[in-house]
């Protein structure tokens, strides 16, 4: 069950010709795929394209009606390999994943696909996770397009342009027998906008048709001598065909006046940012009409030499606005101008910084710098020599007091107690090398846990501690999530550890979902899924590849047990990898699943027990050790209205879901007795109510008896 239901949005996929579609960029892509007659779609979820996968999963009925096959791939490599269906068959196929992580994982399949070429249009939609809010290393997908020769589309970030480029992407792929990559920047994926829809098209050839009349052509298989031929084909046939298509359909766009001393070349995805900067410099109007000529590369690769040189003709200087590094586009254009012995000066990474996102301020500064150097008369006096730069207020008071807000585990997250246990074990056995992995559990590297030394890629936690094995007195601990485990960790990590007789400890965090990407089901999910096969236990798989020491903790909140198992794993004499499967359901998903059921049961008058935690503020001394072992958003602090108290005390707010971590940690770490758990029984039985009433009366009598013998200070009643 995915984090967000798209049941309502899916209806937008049924819009017919002429109707207006309004919604998120990534939904528009989904609709564009159906309008293009796509035959199959596959992918691996992850920001920012998770919604595309979730929408497709919820759109099962529409896809079935159209005869479109949808796969939730095991990995990006699987997704890319799925495009093999377009090698021999004239079927349009699209796959999607997060770039560049996904591109890295998929590169083997992508390279083979690009070598043999395709018959049906093959589209790789990559969600560019770059800049603010990105969760991964900052690299460009552009390099992959260049090395494997895959055409790269980077459309202007508005819905009509994005939708057009999906349709052109398929056609371009077919015209040049080459897979095409469509790059979607993170904000474009989530941009809310509109476009006029077309009718959905049934694929002319479906995957069923292909299965029933199979084809093969050895010339398309990547094996010598065909592979040598492919390299020539790429240059001699496919490249010219692509250039021809791009030019014929004007995929790249030119805006602004025909004559000008300067011009700007930009990646399509940066168009809105460039226009905004021009607007702020008084050089463009609201509608984007620019006083400086713009050459917009909706096709970022291949670059089209004559288009570019024509644009440069007669201009003194041209600026390349290209985000990220290396500056492949600028380098290529530089070579073109040089060979032409052109007089036109090329600027790019000189007014702009070599690295980093082109935010609004960077864009403004870069354009102003370029114009000041090459066309100062276009700038106002103020912009030519600004008296005061607009810079963010760097007030020491703000930097001291505005708190950093690192991402952290959700309220009631079952992974929190795992790392609390790990921290407590470190107190007893000393610090260990901890190899982290990608997934929610990676938040352990941030405060308050601060556990984990490296993260080498999705599912590669155990693999990344492979070398750290030997006769040391300590063992390495590797963390991996259930998502990463099924993605590749079973073979790259666990199987590898068994085979190489690695002695380390592997902690598999099993929260029943691929939680970090939005709660999608995976092989070991416990839910019944109509269209997928679930409930395949991780422990069985681990034993299947030869691990003998496996412990499953099926309630991670049991911090004492977690701690004991971890200590055993770190100290046992048994050889080979020690695998702990720590299982508890993702609390976000669990709440989403249970809340409506509990509410319904309560209204039906059934007995329901709700739990929550609290802190006795008189007993709490304000040391906050409990918070250093938790970080739960619902466990906070508050200042007491008491002049005798210096420090704020712990406090639990209404968002508490009663997971139990606070109490378990207080117990396991021998912290303090201030935590209490309330079990609130709704619709109790008659007997239960009677017994509780009796107890309350006796206890009340005792309380009054003692209160009578002392002074009572009313202020203590909250």
């Amino acid at each position, binding site marked *: 069950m995915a984090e967000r239901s798209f049941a309502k949005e899916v209806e937008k996929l049924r819009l017919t010709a002429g109707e207006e579609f309004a919604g998120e960029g990534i939904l528009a892509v989904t609709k564009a795929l159906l309008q293009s007659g796509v035959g199959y779609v596959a992918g691996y979820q992850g920001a920012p394209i998770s919604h595309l996968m979730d929408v497709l999963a919820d759109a099962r009925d529409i896809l079935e009606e159209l005869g479109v096959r949808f796969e939730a791939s095991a990995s990006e490599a699987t997704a890319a390999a799925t495009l093999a269906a377009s090698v021999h068959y004239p079927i349009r196929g699209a796959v999607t994943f997060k770039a560049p992580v996904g591109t890295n994982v998929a590169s083997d399949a992508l390279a083979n696909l690009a070598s043999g070429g395709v018959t049906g249009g093959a589209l790789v939609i990559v969600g560019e996770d770059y800049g603010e809010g990105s969760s991964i290393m900052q690299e460009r997908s552009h390099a992959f397009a260049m090395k494997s020769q895959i055409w790269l589309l980077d459309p202007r970030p508005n819905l009509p342009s994005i939708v057009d480029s999906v349709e052109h992407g398929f056609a371009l792929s077919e015209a040049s027998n080459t897979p095409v990559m469509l790059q979607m920047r993170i904000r474009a994926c989530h941009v809310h906008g509109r476009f006029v829809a077309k009718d959905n098209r049934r694929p002319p050839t479906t995957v069923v048709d292909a299965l029933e009349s199979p084809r093969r052509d050895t010339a398309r298989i990547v094996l010598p001598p065909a592979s040598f031929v492919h390299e020539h084909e790429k240059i001699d046939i496919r490249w010219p065909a692509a250039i021809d298509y791009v030019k014929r359909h004007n995929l790249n766009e030119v805006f602004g006046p025909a004559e000008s001393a300067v011009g700007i070349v930009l990646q399509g995805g940066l168009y809105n940012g460039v*226009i905004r900067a021009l607007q702020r410099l008084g050089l463009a109007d609201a509608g984007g009409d620019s006083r400086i000529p713009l050459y917009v590369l909706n096709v970022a690769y291949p670059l089209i030499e004559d288009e570019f040189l024509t644009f440069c003709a007669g201009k003194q200087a041209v600026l390349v606005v290209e985000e990220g590094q290396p500056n492949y586009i600028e380098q290529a254009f530089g070579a073109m101008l040089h060979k032409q012995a052109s007089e036109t000066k090329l600027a790019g990474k000189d007014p702009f910084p070599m690295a980093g996102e082109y935010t609004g301020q960077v864009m403004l500064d870069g354009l102003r710098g370029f114009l000041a150097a090459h066309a100062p008369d276009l700038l106002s006096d103020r912009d030519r020599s600004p008296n005061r730069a607009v810079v963010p207020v760097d007030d020491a008071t703000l930097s001291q007091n*505005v708190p950093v807000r690192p991402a952290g585990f959700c309220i009631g997250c079952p992974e929190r107690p795992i790392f609390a246990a790990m921290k407590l074990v470190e107190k007893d056995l000393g610090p260990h090398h901890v190899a982290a992995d990608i997934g929610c559990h990676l938040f352990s590297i941030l405060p308050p846990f601060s556990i984990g030394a490296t993260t080498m890629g999705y599912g590669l936690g155990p693999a990344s501690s492979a070398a750290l094995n030997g006769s040391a007195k300590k063992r390495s601990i590797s963390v991996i999530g259930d998502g990463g485990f099924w993605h590749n960790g079973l073979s790259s990590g666990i199987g590898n550890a068994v085979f190489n007789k690695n002695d380390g400890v592997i902690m598999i965090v099993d929260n029943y979902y691929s939680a970090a990407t939005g709660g999608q089901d995976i092989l070991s999910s416990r839910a019944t899924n109509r269209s997928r096969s679930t409930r395949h236990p991780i422990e069985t798989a681990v034993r299947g590849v030869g691990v003998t020491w496996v412990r499953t903790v099926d309630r991670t909140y049991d911090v004492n047990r977690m701690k004991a198992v971890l200590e055993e794993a770190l100290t046992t004499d048994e050889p080979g990898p020690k695998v702990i499967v720590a299982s508890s359901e993702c609390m976000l998903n669990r709440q989403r699943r249970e809340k409506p059921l509990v509410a319904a049961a309560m209204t039906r008058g059934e007995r329901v027990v709700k739990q929550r935690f609290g802190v006795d503020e008189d007993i709490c001394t304000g040391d906050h050790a409990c918070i250093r072992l938790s970080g739960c958003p619902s466990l906070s602090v508050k200042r007491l209205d008491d002049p005798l108290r210096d420090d704020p005390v712990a406090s639990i707010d209404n968002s508490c879901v009663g997971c139990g971590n606070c109490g378990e940690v207080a117990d396991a770490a021998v912290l303090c007795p201030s935590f209490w758990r309330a079990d609130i029984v709704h619709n109790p039985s008659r007997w239960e109510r009677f017994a509780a009433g009796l107890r309350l009366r006796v206890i009340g009598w005792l309380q009054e008896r003692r209160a009578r013998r002392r*002074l009572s200070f009313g202020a203590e009643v909250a």
Partner: protein
Amino acid sequence: MTAIGFDASDAGEVGTTQEAGVIKLAILAIGGQGGGVITDWIVATAERNGWLAQSTSVPGVAQRTGATIYYVEMAPGGGPVPVMALAPAPGDVDIVVAAELMEAGRAVQRGFVTPETTTLIASTHRAYGILEKSAPGDGIGDAAAVTEILLRSAKRLILADMETLARDKGSVISASLFGALAAAGVLPFSRESYEQTIRDSGKGVTASLAAFAAGWQTVRDPQDPDRLEPRPQKVRSRPEPVGTAELSAAYHRLVHRIETGFPEVAQDMLLAGLEKVVDYQDIGYGRQYLDRVAEVSALDAVDRGALLTVEAAKYVANAMAYDDVIRVADLKTRGSRALRVREEAGVGEKQVLKVTEYMHPRAEEVCGLLPRRLGAFLEARPKWMARLDRLVNRGRRVRTDTLFWFLVLYTLGGLRLWRRRLLRHAHETQHIENWLDRVKATAPRNYALAVEILRCRRLIKGYSDTHARGLSKYDKVLSSLPALLDRSDGGDWLRRLRDVALKDEEGSDLEGALKTVESL
């Protein structure tokens, strides 16, 4: 071509595009606060009024409790379709909505708030960052200082506790912020059209509309003094203690002694301290408390604002009301506490409440409960202690709503009457006497240092390991006394050492600081 855009030549600052008719709005929120909801509402309201609107966000990991920014641009429909940016730029945002006070500070920090253009609507409530919460001691950021910056950063500032406004109506902050945005009048839409958006959303409509109205009201009604200023600290009123006439009379004699025998500036603190120790033990303990403070106060200097007395009033009370098993059991079995739990847990008449306490006694705690001699005998024998520890040291989840466990704790709480004869009390008394002796010895020679010695009591807190760690930090910090005694800046140094000790859980920074002091 004609530039409809901003003409930089005759305006004050570099480039805003306001003249182009595009309104730019950024929402700064914390993951989980519902920033996406208000963003969707704003877009829907703009579109309902025939405007073109574009919103973007960067969800992903930031959603999990991180700081998030949502960004909306909008322009009147009918004209050419405007090109809109996908992210806010410093110096170019018309409206900033901050769903928490420090997020408003962050907006200023990032340059989104400018005095020339920006209307800032911010909630004054705090959601503490993890480093603020996890700091041992007080790590909370200075809200007043940030508010002061907000006051001079925006063209127009609207501040109110939007969180409480919404919660009081059973809703969430997005609704009250939406109401405040509507009332601010910075967007040319009618109240009705905002409300229609909420109605169309179809979820929790009644509560959302009520919170919307509260948000609207707080902006439109200028009489509410809390709106622009952070709420002033309430002066704590001390209600009359309830008890027998005899006890009340005895208590009032002590109050009278405070009012006649101590400097006026220290009286509030003394009253609070007296209340605490009498509540902790009995009237006699209160008398002893005043005796102890009086001894210190006798050495006070008139020209120093009776600082020594004030601090003694505070920390002697805290030291005397040390946290022991009896105290915990007593507090957990009081009627007032039962009421508070019921209230916090939201238990109604028709529900049954079960309360579980998390206790983890160790041999030390049990030993502390024994009569002084017996306890000391046992304490001196590590093997016996280890045996006792094996017997008692484990987590105990205790249901205090059941008669059995209530009675156990009730009985433990009742040991209060014997507390003065028990081992722990002997330890604590000795510790307090040593501490006060140092203060008294220091005060005539170095007043500031004596004040700081009193304040070092703050280092001792918590239970079990935390308590032991606090004691050891206290000892380490005070070990620097001989070096500081005759230095005029001795008090400052001790304060610095204490601050380091407070922040430093493991104690390594403290070692470094002590070395520095040694080298003075």
